[in-house]
């Protein structure tokens, strides 16, 4: 049975880059990570700023960011096989197809939920991943995000 994990980042500056990721979940040859829930908002001073967001497939793993240990949703589960990393100072991975795209105002809290069996899936291949990108941003603000995935 699939096990669920959560990756959380709080108060991280929105990346505003088409090449450098905001966050990345990286698979191994043993598991296929599947994102089924994503929440994104901002705890910065409220302002009318806009940002676009996408989740893309990536075929190389970023380096240099802040490694985040995915937390098991069920505390009885073992540590996740997939790894995660969040901005800042991540290196640019090789990006491929867009899997999900949206735009949101800084004042809004956004959530995307997949129906069971319709998750964003990454192949069980080393260094392949699902990458959260922030291509455009009108002005800098910090974000808080939670990405939940199963493997």
């Amino acid at each position, binding site marked *: 049975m699939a096990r669920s994990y959560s990756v959380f980042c709080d108060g991280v500056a929105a990346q505003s880059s088409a090449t450098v990721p905001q966050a990345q979940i990286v698979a191994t*040859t043993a598991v*296929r990570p599947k994102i089924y829930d994503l929440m994104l908002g901002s705890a910065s001073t409220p302002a009318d700023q806009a940002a676009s967001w996408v989740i893309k497939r990536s075929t190389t793993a970023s380096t240099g960011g802040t490694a985040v240990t995915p937390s098991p949703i069920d505390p009885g589960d073992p540590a996740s096989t997939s790894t995660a990393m969040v901005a800042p100072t991540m290196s640019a991975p090789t990006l491929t*197809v*867009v*899997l*999900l*795209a*949206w735009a*949101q105002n800084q004042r*809004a*809290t*956004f*959530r*995307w*939920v*997949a*129906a069971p069996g*319709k998750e*964003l*899936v990454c*192949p*069980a*291949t*080393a260094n*392949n991943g699902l990458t959260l990108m922030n291509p455009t941003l009108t002005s800098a603000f910090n974000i808080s995000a939670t990405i939940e995935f199963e493997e």
Partner: protein
Amino acid sequence: MREHGGFIVDGKQVATTLQCPHCGGHFVSVQGSGKRRCWCLKCCAVTCGRPECDECVPIEKQLELIEKAYKSAMYGN
């Protein structure tokens, strides 16, 4: 058509998404938007409309091909 995902803003569902059976990406389908979409007769589902997704290669098959190519490159089998 049954939704495959949903956008929720400030606690209210504002849109539903469909999943492309070929690339696995989710998109918001708006009737009359003029955006190119296709119907895959084999998958019985709407594709995202990218030309790369016109040919029927289901996402499960694509994932297997990527995994197979990696294992072949790494282990030569």
